[in-house]
């Protein structure tokens, strides 16, 4: 088991190293002549108006909350799905009750308008 995840570490190292190799290779060829005009923010040729890092209205905030509930649910569902065939009827009914509770919550969120893009 440990050697398997050790292999993942090797892949991670490659994932970090390879883009840097590309960047280093590019550095050999590409010119570097920055001018103030070149380093301006590109917004279709117009000068940028005001600040970008402002208090931004994240319209998907309610979606994110519902997403969290579903994401946790998947963590429960995956082990259940693997052992589903050997656990028998009890586990199946149990999981259907679990999903039913979640669906009630989902229905409530839907009714309260959490699933509307505002």
């Amino acid at each position: 088991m440990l050697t398997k995840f050790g292999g993942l570490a090797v892949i991670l190292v490659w994932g970090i190293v390879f883009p840097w190799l590309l960047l280093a290779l590019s550095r050999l060829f590409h010119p570097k002549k920055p001018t103030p005009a070149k380093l301006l923010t590109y917004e279709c040729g117009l000068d940028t108006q005001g600040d970008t890092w402002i208090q931004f209205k994240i319209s998907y905030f309610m979606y994110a909350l519902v997403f969290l509930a579903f994401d946790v649910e998947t963590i429960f569902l995956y082990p259940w799905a693997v052992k589903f065939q050997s656990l028998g009827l009890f586990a199946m009914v149990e999981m259907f009750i679990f999903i039913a509770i979640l669906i009630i919550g989902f229905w409530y969120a839907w009714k309260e308008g959490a699933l509307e893009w505002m």
Partner: protein
Amino acid sequence: MQISNTIATGLKDWLMGMGFSATTTEMIATAVWTLAVILFILLNLIVLVWLERKFSAFFQQRRGPNRLGPAGFLQFPVDIVKVLGKEDIIPAAADKPVFRIASITLFITAILAWAVIPLGEGMILEDLNIGIFYFIAIGSTATISLLMGGFASNNKYSLLGGMRTVAQMISYEIPMVFSLLGVIMMVGSLRLSDIVKAQEHMWFIIPQGIAFIIYFIATVAETNRGPFDLAEGEQELVAGYFTEYSGIRYAIWMIAEYGNLVAVSTIASIMFLGGWNAPFGLTFIPPFLWLLIKIYFMIFLFMWVKWTYPRIRIDHLMHFGWKFLIPVSLANILVTGVGIYIYRMITG
């Protein structure tokens, strides 16, 4: 039969002969394999960009690239050389450290996802027993990279693109994850080689057809491709979260995105289209080639959808995901559960 396995065994034997320990040998072999996978992605990138341009030209009744090489095939290799020679511009207003690492983190997630994806029998980096779960877990972290790129650029188009990506990717992750559950319930294992083995007699697209369609729609949104390419909608947001990227950094975004596209197509082929199993007893084509044919069939579907449908509005996109795909995918799990139970009662 498996040339790659022969090479791997030969390499390991040679390294052992050099006097390395078993662990070091494994590590070096994994490193070589990873490099092979990266090269596979890059080779695919060359073919895919050419295919994408040719297909889009075909769908729009144009010719597409046709100057360099046969049917313009050499256009993209020349473009790579061009990209290597382009200046690497980092805007003065950008958050420079985050801007620099954003494309690299996306590349890392793309490579890490490939760790569990087999390209043929035994041709896999690490055949983890949590394979598909690992793939989903790594795939969902790509969202952060895209948001980093959009936020750090300090450009309003990039910010909007990054924010839209997050909304879209978290919404379509749930139907994607649920659609794969039906297959896992039928197999009883998360290991991808077990899933392929279970499809020797019947591909899972037959009992899990609805799940396949849900998975396909959800991955179109997950990879930010048309008609769900709101995050980089060219007509409204220039290029979305990578508007400010140029030169080789832009190329790293593209490599990672196409790497993800090939990865989700491979997962679709493995989960629903029988992996490297040959259909109709056509076993004279080797398993590796069968998988490649299926991957390219899936990619063709992705491109077909992209160039056929117009981009849809963000609220329609969210409503479709939450109010249609999630209930349908939940119902699919329930129907699959009951179906398996009835099937087992009949067959005893």
